């Protein structure tokens, strides 16, 4: 795993690709960090300048892609931090601490299924690309879900012909299967050991995916979120309850994750 660094990067593009969803492209002289970064790892970004106390903390964003010498993030405007980020113009400098955490690890299954829901699709693109690069013969299924068509992100990147086997679901049926992305997963047949599922999305969706996997005896990796202050294991703020009996113990999303084996949590 590459050692994280705290660098300054310049915004090259910051474009609204779907309503309230922005694609942020950054230039950096320190591209090593990014080429070494594992898919599923993340960065902590300081939106405004370091001397600004509002907002105070950096914000975590997953690495969405590394392309043409640029790093890309895909983010949704939720609160003040992402709102300010969305207003930043090309040329603006950002402070970035990256790459952080433990990403997805490619298992030795025959078939790999990437399941993304909503903004959870963001980290999967880079993972799909890296897997294709490293193990071109793998079968990569991609299941993408969102509430509605407008919230489906990065679809055209996945549906580039010949790369992945992509299926889509929307809650309102505005694109693809009318229903949950878990319906699509449930429909897949693969024997235990042949299949690994990699999942990122809303908490209930990941829980449902991990239940399906347990039932079907598939391996399952999930990428969790938590409120974070440091992103680097120093504050212990990003706790997530660990599966177990007896005294409740916690894992830390930033340093033990954000990608976990489903059975560590549920």
């Amino acid at each position: 795993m590459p050692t994280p660094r705290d660098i300054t990067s310049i915004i090259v593009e910051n474009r609204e690709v779907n309503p309230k969803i922005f694609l942020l492209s950054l230039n950096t002289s320190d591209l090593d960090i990014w080429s070494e970064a594992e898919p599923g790892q993340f960065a902590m970004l300081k939106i405004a300048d370091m001397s600004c106390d509002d907002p105070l903390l950096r914000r975590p964003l997953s690495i969405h892609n590394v392309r043409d010498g640029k790093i890309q993030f895909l983010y949704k405007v939720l609160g003040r931090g992402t709102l300010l980020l969305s207003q930043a113009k090309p040329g603006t400098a950002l402070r970035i601490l990256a790459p952080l955490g433990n990403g997805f690890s490619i298992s030795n299954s025959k078939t790999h299924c990437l399941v993304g829901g909503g903004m959870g699709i963001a980290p999967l693109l880079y993972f799909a690309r890296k897997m294709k690069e490293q193990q071109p013969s793998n079968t990569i299924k991609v299941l993408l879900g969102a509430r509605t068509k407008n919230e489906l992100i990065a679809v055209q990147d996945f549906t580039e012909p010949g790369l992945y086997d992509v299926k889509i679901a929307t809650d309102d049926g505005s694109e693809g299967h009318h229903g949950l992305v878990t319906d699509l997963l449930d429909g897949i047949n693969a024997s235990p050991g042949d299949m690994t599922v990699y999942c990122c999305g809303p908490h209930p969706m990941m829980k449902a995916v991990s239940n399906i996997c347990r039932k079907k005896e598939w391996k399952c990796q999930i990428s969790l979120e938590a409120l974070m202050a440091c992103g680097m294991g120093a504050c212990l703020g990003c706790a997530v309850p660990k599966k177990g009996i007896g005294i409740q113990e916690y894992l830390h999303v930033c340093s033990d994750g954000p990608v976990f084996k489903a059975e560590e949590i549920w």
Partner: protein
Amino acid sequence: MTGPDLKIKIGGWTLKNPIMTASGTFGYGEEFTPYLNLEDLGAVVVKGISLEPRSGNPPPRIVETPCGMLNAIGLENVGLEKFISTKMQIFRKYNTDFVVNILGDSVEEYSTLAARLNDTDIAAIEVNISCPNVKKGGVAFGVDPQMAYEVTQAVRRRTDKPLIIKLSPNVTDITVMAKAAEDGGADAVSLINTLLGMAIDPATRKPKLANIVGGLSGPAIKPVALRMVWQASKRVRIPVIGIGGIRTTEDVIEFMLAGASAVQIGTANLIDPGVSGNIVKGLLGYLKQHKISSVRELIGGLKTP
């Protein structure tokens, strides 16, 4: 030509400079090695350690507030023995002074921790007294001068390491608490720990922290911290270590002028992991620029009418 002198003394302990990190905001030190050289710092204060391991509070444990943050980590830590057998081995790799912050539920727990740590090669012990005294109905040691005195005295009896008592700001009169620590035999007091605060999510109508209340830290609390450091340093003769919202060299100078002999940097480490190292450089630059030969000249240098 020799540069300005950055050394500071606390009891019999000489720090290479007055910049320490604050407990709970700097992990066990090693997490920060990509961003700074631990050996540049005056001291590293590690996460609070208790006798037994603690798993801490359920999430959410942190929330951002205006120019600050609340935390309710719940003093999660690996416990004394695992700390000594694993984390402490890591310290040995660095030529840096490590301070261990301890916490307990009773005077006995604090004493035991101190006795055990006395046999190790750490530089100093910092006692976090913002913990509830289980035997005395859960009132925090840090808000009752008599309890603060007792715990200080008990720890003092079990260690000859430099002893720092870390004070809670959630009191009517910080000078009384500082005096209690001094009378109990402390070599220094450090202040402030976090202010007790709370945040609510109006949408869910729930507290934003699972623990309901948490500790407020960051720039927001700096004016309160500065005032308490000023008050405490006028009351006690032992060194005062200033903590609260520090994130620039200027902040350090302000705390030292107010009476601090050294400072600890907390929340700022979480935002800017290299900041403590940069402040050491900044302080050196400041002294050079102003032709001040020793950083000690700043201590208590506030000009009041």
